[in-house]
């Protein structure tokens, strides 16, 4: 079997090739530095590195920054950049997961109604439960809302047409989004005392980011993205359809439930700390599909890394374009996302 021995090199699944790995890592690192350095007070890369090292014990590096710059860097910019990275990575990896389990290139936390459901859950929690916008209860409320929205969209989409039909699921998600948004507006109008809180939270953004918000979101994001990462091969098996995946020994229903719960929990935590940010879950995975590979072994891990960098950069734009005022970050992602979405619609038509 000499031929089989030599075939070992070619008979393998393409993961993420080394150049793409390095490129994605460099993109994230670069965007972190841009995020930390750009602002009314410019801080250079060496300043950031030396200041970071000065906080580590035993190294005896002295920060070159003034105490004001130190505070700007570590109390204002760093939590903001880290939160944007966590949220961006989560929304992107959740998008890739929804796309895999629903066999639908257009599935995304926003289009499936998850974001609107999370928004409603959080609004109810703020309006009736008097939880602050930084509380631990907010992610939970937003998770319950998000999960009911994705369940509603799935059931509705299935009754309207085959699950594989991209159109039915997106329309169902849109319907759920419109309904949940209406209910949410109603709740908001009934509780004008919290209107301002809710509204500024809904618009989305990281202008009030704190380390405590990072601490609220990070555990959910870590667990849920780890769960999705571990399923990257199984997501490829699902690409041959439910029936064939089942004949290959996969428990499709259980897998779908597990991945939807993971993606929704992570999305809900992201929504809870950042409000509604559209399109990240579509732009990032599809860019990777177009550039690198359609295999989930590439799409899932790269979505996490590139999504994180993408949202950090989008946030930099949001706070610099009309400085000293800020654009809502949802405006920035939608500005790039809407045209991109149109392109995806065209290519996904030729794909099926």
């Amino acid at each position, binding site marked *: 079997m000499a031929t089989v021995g030599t075939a070992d090199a070619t008979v393998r699944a393409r993961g993420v090739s080394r150049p793409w790995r390095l490129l994605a890592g460099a993109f994230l690192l670069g965007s972190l530095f841009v995020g930390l350095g750009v602002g009314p007070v410019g801080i250079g890369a060496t300043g950031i590195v030396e200041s970071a090292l000065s906080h580590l014990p035993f190294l005896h590096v002295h920060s070159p920054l003034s105490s004001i710059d130190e505070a700007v860097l570590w109390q204002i910019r760093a939590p903001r950049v880290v939160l944007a990275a966590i949220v961006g990575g989560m929304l992107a990896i959740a998008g890739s997961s929804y796309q895999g389990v629903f066999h639908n290139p257009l599935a995304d936390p926003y289009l499936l109604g998850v974001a609107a459901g999370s928004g409603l859950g959080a609004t109810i929690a703020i309006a009736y439960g008097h939880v602050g916008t930084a509380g631990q209860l907010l992610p939970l409320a937003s998770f319950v809302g998000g999960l009911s929205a994705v369940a509603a969209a799935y059931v509705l989409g299935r009754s309207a047409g085959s699950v594989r039909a991209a159109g039915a699921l997106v329309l169902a998600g849109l319907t759920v989004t419109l309904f949940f948004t209406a209910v949410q507006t109603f709740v908001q109008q009934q509780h004008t005392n919290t209107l301002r809180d809710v509204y500024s939270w809904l618009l989305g953004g990281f202008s009030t980011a704190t380390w405590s918000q990072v601490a609220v979101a990070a555990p959910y994001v870590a667990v849920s993205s780890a769960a999705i990462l571990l399923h990257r091969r199984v997501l490829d098996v699902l690409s041959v359809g439910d029936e064939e995946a089942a004949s290959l020994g996969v428990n499709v229903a259980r897998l779908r439930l597990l991945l939807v719960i993971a993606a929704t929990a992570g999305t809900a935590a992201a929504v809870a700390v950042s409000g509604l940010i559209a399109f990240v879950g579509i732009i990032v995975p599809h860019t990777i599909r177009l550039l690198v*590979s359609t295999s989930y072994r590439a799409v899932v891990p790269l979505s996490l890394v590139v999504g994180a960098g993408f949202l950090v950069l989008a946030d930099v734009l949001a706070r610099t374009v009309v400085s000293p005022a800020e654009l809502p970050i949802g405006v920035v992602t939608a500005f790039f996302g809407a045209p991109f979405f149109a392109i995806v619609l065209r290519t996904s038509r030729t794909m099926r």
Partner: protein
Amino acid sequence: MIELRSLAVRFDGTEAVRRISLDVATDEWVMLIGPNGAGKTSVLRALCGLLPFEGDALLDGRDVRELRRRELARLIAFVPQNPVTPPELTVAEYALLGRTPHLGYLATEGRRDRQAAARALERLDLLPFAERGLGSLSGGELQRAVLARALAQEARILLLDEPTTSLDLGRQQQVLELVDSLRSDGLTVVSTMHDLTLAGQYADRLVLLDRGAVVAEGEPEDVLSAANLAAYYGASVRVVSDGDGTYVLPQRR
């Protein structure tokens, strides 16, 4: 060894398969034939756990319903009539999907899995195509890739639902010859088949189904009678037998 005892499949109250009993011996190739809607595909799908059924289905004496999904997938490989073949997936990646039942739930393929996939590709002369995308293959090559995925599964039973549809006559013969040669490795094959002449040439035994029930079973020359085909297919045919086989020739009424 496959044993079906009073196997019945119901869809929304209508019986797609009515109490079929059938034994398939190891290394045997049994073909299910019958008009559209006779329940051929339902029998295959019930056997590999994709459809709920009544009665018994045993594999080497073990009840299909008591096997876990992964165990079943290590015993039976199923090739549907229109398999989903993502165009961007390479032939090697597609064949590796066949290793799924042998992997831990969250594991990725190891060296042994890659070798099993490589053996399957070699068996079907697909090694030169390993890194080609499925979308770039011709119909015959694609059908071989699908068979390679099933072979990589290393199951002892192969279920083929209409393995030759959408292939030209030469490719049909190639695929059937391939399947026949795989049997020398100890593979048991159950397939459905539209083309009756080819069915008669390659099957050890034919089972004619009509409206979910077995109406004839046995050697090709016995099952493929003009009377049977008129009664169950509503077809007007002339059947010619010589020493080599049985030929079903459609006749214009």
